[in-house]
């Protein structure tokens, strides 16, 4: 009896290759879906560690002051400059739009409300992200890849307490301060454009502003600013603290920090607004 013809080896090989490819694709998809949750989990873990180490002595006042100076004082010019132009462009748009139906008197009120509740905290946080957040990630990332963070550990100094806590506290305190600055300079910019250039009555502009905007609106903006301040510094520190892969890795970490911070600011803005207004999340 002749031997059976040998079966073609390509078929099982092809099947196993397909199976491997399918499994890899599945893994990749699962990783993609889970990665935001992994990132959020890592952020909360770092936040928890920061609270834990933040309440323990020693309290290094010099580091807190340094971080506040870097985040707050260092951002004054950038925040003021953007506030003038944001206030100015809001005034241009609103005066032009309201004039069509004779409501330009409301310009001051609407600008004041928009700045206090929304534009001030969001823009202040975005400016802190672009200036201080990226610099923090780069600094911590460089410290990580050159073993400076490991050196802290070997000297029995907790790196979260030494590096992250002062920056988080500075973000929590200074972003609201910068938001107030943005509100004031933004109103000044709007006043200059609406009254000085477009001829709106100065008394009406200020009167309408005071009539509509009260301290609750300002407080709502400041609550948002505190949340944003913690979020952007936390993201910047987390990306820098765990950076790897040399100079290129630090660059990627900085890029991720800026993108994640911008997304976090806008998502948290919606979340906090809906909470404060009691309208539900979605």
């Amino acid at each position: 009896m002749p031997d059976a013809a040998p079966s073609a080896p390509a078929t099982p090989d092809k099947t196993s290759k397909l199976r491997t490819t399918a499994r890899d694709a599945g893994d990749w998809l699962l990783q993609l879906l889970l990665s935001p949750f992994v990132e959020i989990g890592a952020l909360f873990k770092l936040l928890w560690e920061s609270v834990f180490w933040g309440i323990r002595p020693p309290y290094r006042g010099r580091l807190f002051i340094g971080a506040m100076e870097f985040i707050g004082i260092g951002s004054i010019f950038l925040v003021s400059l953007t506030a003038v132009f944001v206030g100015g462009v809001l005034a241009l748009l609103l005066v032009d739009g309201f004039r069509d139906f004779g409501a330009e008197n409301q310009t001051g009120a609407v600008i004041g409300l928009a700045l206090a509740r929304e534009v001030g905290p969001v823009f202040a946080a975005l400016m802190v992200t672009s200036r201080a957040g990226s610099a923090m990630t780069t600094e911590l990332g460089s410290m990580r890849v050159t073993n400076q963070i490991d050196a802290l550990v070997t000297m029995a100094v907790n790196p979260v307490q030494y590096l992250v806590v002062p920056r988080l506290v500075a973000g929590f305190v200074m972003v609201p301060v910068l938001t107030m600055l943005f509100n004031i300079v933004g109103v000044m910019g709007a006043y200059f454009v609406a009254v000085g250039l477009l001829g709106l009555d100065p008394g009406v502009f200020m009167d309408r502003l005071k009539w509509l905007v009260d301290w609750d609106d300002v407080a709502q903006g400041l609550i948002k600013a505190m949340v944003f301040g913690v979020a952007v510094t936390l993201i910047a520190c987390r990306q820098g603290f765990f950076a790897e892969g040399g100079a290129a890795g630090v660059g990627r970490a900085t890029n991720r920090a800026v993108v994640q911070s911008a997304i976090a600011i806008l998502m948290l803005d919606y979340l906090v607004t809906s909470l404060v207004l009691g309208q539900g999340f979605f």
Partner: protein
Amino acid sequence: MKFFRRNLIRLTRAPLPPEMKDDPIHVRIRDLHKSYGEHHVLKGVSLDIHRGQTNLIIGPSGSGKTVLMRQLIRLENPDSGQLIVNGIDFARLEGLDLAAMRRTFGMVFQMSALFDSMTVFDNVAFPLREHSDLSRNDIRDRVMDRLAALGVAAAAQKLPAQLSGGMQKRVAVARAMILESEILIYDEPTTGLDPITTEMVDELITEAEEMFGVTSIVISHDMASVVRIANQLSFLHEGRIAATGTPEELLHTDHPATAEFIRASRISLG
């Protein structure tokens, strides 16, 4: 304040019992394992580190030298095994006890890892400011003494970036020694340095040992340093200590991988 004081006291090392000072073995590493996922890097490292001597751990790239170093100083937690330092299992310590025990070690990193935002003086003063209640003048005196002993006092107000590689190493040794640590670990101290600076760093390791009576652990793949400084030599191969002994013993070993490594290095005690 009371809480801070208590922590400070716990962070201060207890004096070494006299019987420990006579123990010729300073660190006993026993069956140390470390894996990253499915990659088993340390596969049961067992090694004695001799007190007051320069202990070199050599091995080819990828043999697990840096991983071993990271376990030694507890930058990472070993999966299993013991790290017995002065009779205490360092591998099992946590919290403030771990922090206190870390002060037994000083670490000199491959790239020195000096804080680049601080001057040389502030780098060396840093551990004292963190862990002692010495006055400002006492800190200044102690730091300047240590910098002078290592020949870098003139650079006290410079930033690390303004120093040469050899000088950075000296400052790193001064920082590692300022709390009078018993054990100094050097991670690849001569990698990337020119031959003259390499020789200088080797001399520095010997000087630190002689001047301050420390136990040195040098992790390296530079066989030239072996001849110059090693009292004890161990060869790490595929996650295990393949051979250990004096340099003379290892240079005549019949362990194939060790012999091959030494032959490739073209080193002799001449």
